């Protein structure tokens, strides 16, 4: 199986470092971005299957970033990172076409499973487009 390429977007550097270390060991290529703008720039340059997107960020917020990603990179799937205080953003995320959401704090296994499903969906979508 090919390695899954993900982009994690969060304004907390410690979280980014941690997740990069933990997922790196699990057959996942992890790139990181510290803000919505940075994420959009990164998506223009590096190939990514799944974006893990924090809903609460200064600057370009999570939902705005999601909308931009859906507009510019339709083949990418997005998983929203939601806190107990930001359920509304999770709801908005799903209705704006995010693949899934995950509630903080989460277990790495749970996240990995959702990433795998999202990756499968992204690949199927790409193949369907190639055929048609």
């Amino acid at each position: 199986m090919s390695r899954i390429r993900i982009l994690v977007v969060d304004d907390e550097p410690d979280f980014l470092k941690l997740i990069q270390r933990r997922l790196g060991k699990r057959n996942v290529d992890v790139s990181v971005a510290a803000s919505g703008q940075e994420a959009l720039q990164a998506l223009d340059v590096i190939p990514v299957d799944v974006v893990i997107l924090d809903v609460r960020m200064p600057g370009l917020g999570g939902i705005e970033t999601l909308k931009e990603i859906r507009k510019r990179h339709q083949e990418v799937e997005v998983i929203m990172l939601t806190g107990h205080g930001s359920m509304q953003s999770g709801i908005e995320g799903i209705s704006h076409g995010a693949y899934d959401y995950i509630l903080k704090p989460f277990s790495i296994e749970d996240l990995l499973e959702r990433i795998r499903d999202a990756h499968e969906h992204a690949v199927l979508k790409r193949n369907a487009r190639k055929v048609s």
Partner: protein
Amino acid sequence: MNLVRARRTVLFGQYVYPASFLIILVVVVKWPLPGVVAAFVAILCLWGSLLSFSRWIGHASDERMELKEQLIQSQKLLALGEISTGIAHEINNPLNIIMQEAELMRMNFQQDLTEEEVSEIQESLDVILQQVERCSDITHKLLDFARSRRPVTQTADMNRLLVDMLTLVERETDAKHIQIVKVFSNDLPKIKTDPPLLRQVFLNLLINAVQALDGGGLIFVTTQCNDGMVCAEIRDTGPGISAAQIERVFDPFYTTKPPGEGTGLGLSVSLRIINQLGGDILLRSEPGKGAVFTVRIPIER
């Protein structure tokens, strides 16, 4: 009317045909030679009339097709009219606010600005930005509606999808004293479906149920499997939906919510998604007795 004429003739022929047969039989037995001739003539007559009947029936069915087409056309126009009114209404409200704020700003700019006026202008700008966002939300949803995303199917567990969406609305249900009762089937088969689209539908239905229960109440979420379909039922104990409303709730832009709170696209988008996934949504409701939405999805797709 060709159809009426044809039907009358067929009815008439039902009795005439056996009767004429009997008469011919009697005539042939009594006077063989003229009888045979008469029989031939009768057969020719019958054949001729059958021919013209079938022609009438042909015309009649053509007419029917035409009428059907006209009906479909007028229904299409009606739907288009309703949709246009809906869009106009949804966009007009924010436009009106934007106009008012712009006029207010212009008035403020006519004199030298005091500090108070500067802050008022700032407020106006905030409101305008908000309303523009509201408009762009509407156009986004419309675009989404028009550009039906082609479903991509993968294996999914419906119970799990529902649990995830229930977690999202839990905060609101807790605040509104709404209790959720889950009755999940343990041996629900996994389905081949498009998970993000299905999540959207469940979320829509759950949010509707929560909004229907303003003064608190119960939401029953049930899953089961029958005849190759996996079903999720979302039942609330809210005020229910009248028979006249049931006919319209799936129409785009039909909403019972106050302006600005719902675009009236939720249910029509949901139905469309479920249809694309090969399933359907059933609605049962009576005023005062709550509403039951049942989503049915085929196991294999």
